[in-house]
């Protein structure tokens, strides 16, 4: 069975498969992203692919947690050779300037690394940010392994793994094509209070609620707010979430999965009933032409997507999504359009 036949049977956004099947694909040419447990990724052959650890997926048969299979997405045929490159704290700010003039860049960053934090805070300021499509995800681990293993990313060309640097694949496209990057976010700002933070960062003590200074942990507790609902900010019509990681009652501190910014107004999201069907309904009409996608592990967990389908789009369920900047509880979709 050759790679072309395999990929033609599966969703364009990729599929779960055995290591052996993945090996056939990766040896068959083309460019790929791969997600899976570290031990499985280490068994894959060298090739033009990048990968990251994660055991949660929206597979072709629905949501699934597995340590037995890897998720492989074949990237669109490229105009030139896709370039694989490592980035560290010094070089990541140039990731967009390094990107091809026409194409897209796929980025995978290991969760909990300082680079994860740096990217979350600074990416909107990177040079050429928003000028060229930058997408990707944050590699994670099985929640049972927290504290025992660290997320890893891998350069499939060299077989090198890293828990501190980011791996990027810069993919050029022919002139007659371009990449369109979008998000599907079911969360909208609720009708509640307007919240602004006094400092940018991954945690907050104080915030301004309708202009009045309060402790944010006390605020969430007093109003019994469901912290599975993200904070949502309106970025000129794009709804951008920040998810709550936890509330430290003793320190009266709230931790987030992405940074809050001090120049942005947030509201707690309106609840989304029947997330699974709402997501399927919110997908773009041309969802089947989507070429690459990922979604958030919090959507997977909070909305109990295991065993459920979310329309025709598949992908890893990650510790953070990248559509230009770091996102939470959001599906990222990229399609290739004809100019």
């Amino acid at each position: 069975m050759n790679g072309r036949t395999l990929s033609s049977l599966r969703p364009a956004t990729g599929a779960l498969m055995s290591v052996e099947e993945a090996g056939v694909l990766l040896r068959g040419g083309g460019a790929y992203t791969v997600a899976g447990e570290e031990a499985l990724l280490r068994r894959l052959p060298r090739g033009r692919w990048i990968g990251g650890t994660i055991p949660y997926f929206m597979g072709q048969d629905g949501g699934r947690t597995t340590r037995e299979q890897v998720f492989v997405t074949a990237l669109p045929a490229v105009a030139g050779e896709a370039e694989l490159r490592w980035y560290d704290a010094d070089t990541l700010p140039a990731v967009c300037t390094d990107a091809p003039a026409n194409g897209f860049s796929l980025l995978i960053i290991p969760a909990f690394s300082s680079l994860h934090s740096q990217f979350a805070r600074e990416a909107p300021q990177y040079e050429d940010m928003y000028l060229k499509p930058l997408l990707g995800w944050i590699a994670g681990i099985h929640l049972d392994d927290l504290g025992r293993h660290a997320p890893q990313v891998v350069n499939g060309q060299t077989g090198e793994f890293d828990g501190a640097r980011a791996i990027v694949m810069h993919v050029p496209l022919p002139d007659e094509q371009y990449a369109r990057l979008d998000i599907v976010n079911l969360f909208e700002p609720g009708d509640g209070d307007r919240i602004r933070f006094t400092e940018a960062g991954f945690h907050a003590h104080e915030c301004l609620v309708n202009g009045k200074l309060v402790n944010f942990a006390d605020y969430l507790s007093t109003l019994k707010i469901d912290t599975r609902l993200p904070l949502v900010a309106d970025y000129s019509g794009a709804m951008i979430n920040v998810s709550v990681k936890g509330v430290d009652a003793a320190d009266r501190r709230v931790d987030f999965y992405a940074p809050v910014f001090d120049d942005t107004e947030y509201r707690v999201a309106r609840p989304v009933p029947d997330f699974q069907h709402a997501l399927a309904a919110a997908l773009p009409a041309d969802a089947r032409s989507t070429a690459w996608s990922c979604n958030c592990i919090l959507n997977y967990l909070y909305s109990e997507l295991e065993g459920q389908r979310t329309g025709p789009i598949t992908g890893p369920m990650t510790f953070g999504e990248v559509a230009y900047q770091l996102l939470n509880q959001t599906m990222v979709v990229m399609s290739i359009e004809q100019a």
Partner: protein
Amino acid sequence: MTGIDKALLRQLLSITGAWEITDYQLDARKQRCDVWVGPQVERGWFGRPKKAPPARLQQHTWQHVALGPIRFFVHLSAPSGSELARLPWTGDNGMPFTHALAQQVFVMFNEGMSLPTICKMMGLTLNDVWRYRFAIDNGLVKSQSGSVAAAATAATAAAATTQPAARPAPTARPAVAPLAELDDDSGVPDVADPVWMQLVNGEMKLDIRVLSLKLMLTRVRSQLEVISDDEVRLLKLRDLHRYFVKNERVLGHELAQLKLGAVA
């Protein structure tokens, strides 16, 4: 070590006022010269310094304008609260460059040059140029305009004869679009069109379908809220214009609205 006359060094680096070069170290192999500067000491008989009450000194280090292939680093020990008056050979607190060097880098930003290109041409590290860019984008420092620009220009003029020919001379002129962005066939309004400011300040509302534009516009609006420096504000509008030029073929819906606004 190669010897340099301190008075000549002071002249070359345009160090003026009540400051003196206390020491320097030239590493010809690394093409790097570190220069230590402190407050001028009052001297008595035979050039011996008069005793002065010990002052609490603040330490600063900035990269200064290069002379030929030699990169200069100024290490300043200044009494706390010293008024440096934006001297071109000094820099902002926590910033990597002197005002004179920052002026050159800012001109390159205005020319639409990429950070890696600036680093390559100027022999700067990406990290330092990024820090400076981040600071001006967030209104933490101002561009080197007005009197400082003039002073910086004077300072860099001294070095101009020994610098690489490719390096553009710093000027204080307003932002002008590079030739590539002035294509008459372009559907994007000219960078000088008031429609850009109307878009940024919310006077013009667009129905936006493209994610990157929503994010880009939010960033520019947020930056302009904290940037008071006119040159930096212009730079931000140029960034927005460059975004439209780069993404013209995906912005048909938005450009149609923008052009209506431009005509009106």
